């Protein structure tokens, strides 16, 4: 049986992994390669890296870091941030990442999804989206961009369907309202999108307890869930989270 994936997310800033709430109060957590190895050996099913300063400073992503991670770990990983062209995508993939995550770029230029899928296969192209509650949108959520700073007027479910049609192989639903709270995923929008598209959906934002992941899978219909603060802080290990998934009958990879 296909297992549900647990994916630690590492926000990288100036070559170091950091954790901040809504891009503020960043705290240094460690070296990206060392942390990648530790999570991989600890049972993570996949990793995701966001080069958070690359986007803000409008510079290309740190390719040296991507290469170093690819040499050090034997599990899949995705990279986002600082990708603005097909050539940027290619550099990241050739450096050894399995997937590229596009977010604000795809809103500005949706064709990049089609171009990326045509060039590298749709499994390489992940759409990241940051929906925020807005009752004026048909699905109740509006897409924001540029680290939640800009509203787009796009309905979250409509955008997800369009991105899947364009060729996105996976969609990461990162709730603006839940991000950094560790109070649980935004299950409603996760489920709405998971039920609307026929590509895997990754729940993101708000994980604080193993039970939150159980809910993301059972109630949010997610195929994978991103964890950050709850594991970076040392409050939970991946193995501890997975034991609770197994106890809740969630199909989980337990040998690594």
């Amino acid at each position, binding site marked *: 049986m*296909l297992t549900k994936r647990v994916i630690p997310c590492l926000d990288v800033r100036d070559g170091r992994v950091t954790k901040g709430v809504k891009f503020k109060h960043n705290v240094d957590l460690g070296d990206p390669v060392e942390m990648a190895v530790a999570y991989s050996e600890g049972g993570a099913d996949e990793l995701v890296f966001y080069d958070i300063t690359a986007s803000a400073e409008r510079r290309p992503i740190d390719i040296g870091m991507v290469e170093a991670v690819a040499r050090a770990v034997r*599990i899949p990983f995705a990279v986002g941030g600082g990708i603005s062209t097909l050539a940027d995508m290619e550099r990241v993939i050739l450096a050894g990442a399995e997937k590229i995550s596009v977010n604000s770029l795809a809103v500005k230029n949706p064709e990049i999804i089609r171009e990326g899928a045509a060039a590298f296969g749709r499994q390489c192209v992940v759409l990241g989206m940051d929906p925020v509650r807005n009752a004026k949108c048909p699905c109740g959520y509006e897409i924001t961009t540029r680290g939640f700073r800009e509203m787009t007027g796009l309905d979250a479910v409509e955008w997800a369907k369009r991105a899947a049609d364009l060729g996105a192989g996976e969609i990461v639903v990162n709730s603006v309202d839940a991000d950094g709270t560790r109070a649980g995923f935004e299950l409603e929008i996760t489920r709405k999108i998971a039920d609307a598209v026929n590509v895997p959906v990754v729940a993101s934002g708000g994980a604080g307890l193993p039970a939150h992941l159980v809910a993301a899978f059972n109630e949010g219909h997610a195929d994978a869930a991103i964890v950050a603060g709850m594991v970076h802080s040392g409050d939970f290990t991946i193995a501890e989270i997975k034991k609770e998934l197994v106890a809740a009958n969630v199909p989980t990879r337990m040998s690594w």
Partner: protein
Amino acid sequence: MLAIIDYKAGNLTSVRNAFAALGAEATVTRDAATIAAADRLVFPGVGAAASAMANLRALGLETAVRDAVASGKPFLGICLGMQILFEHSEEDGGVDTLGILPGRVRRFPDMPGFKVPEIGWNQVNLQLQTPSEYYFVHSYYAELNPYTVGVTEYAGVKFTAMVKKENLLACQFHPEKSGRVGLELLKAWLAC
């Protein structure tokens, strides 16, 4: 010499990195003479069957691949590199593939609750071994056939996760991205 056949079907960095982690430096090649001279060959692949076949032919490597399999050298197909060893794929409206292995490659049926592509870790039931999870990324699957040695189930279909015929070993999943169990498989293959 360990050679990885590069026929423009996806990125080979992960495959090369995995062998490097086992101490085996691989040569990535598009050259028929290098393929003929290699002791063992890896035939990876990510992408679509029709373009993979077209690239293989455009690079003049179809014969080199057939000869390598026929030569008896250890030959490892991965993902699309396994799929195009079969006779036919439904991908891209239907394409005849190498036909080195008997059988067909089909698309997963639409089934509620089963997303396509299948992305993630799924259990492989291998002959003579305890089942483990390996990492899969695919929308098409190879039917079971007399050479199937590993079976996985998704979207209500039992399909070939691994196939072995004499010197030819091929898998649908990505051993290079399947953590320790994947590395162990590659290590065992290097020793065979």
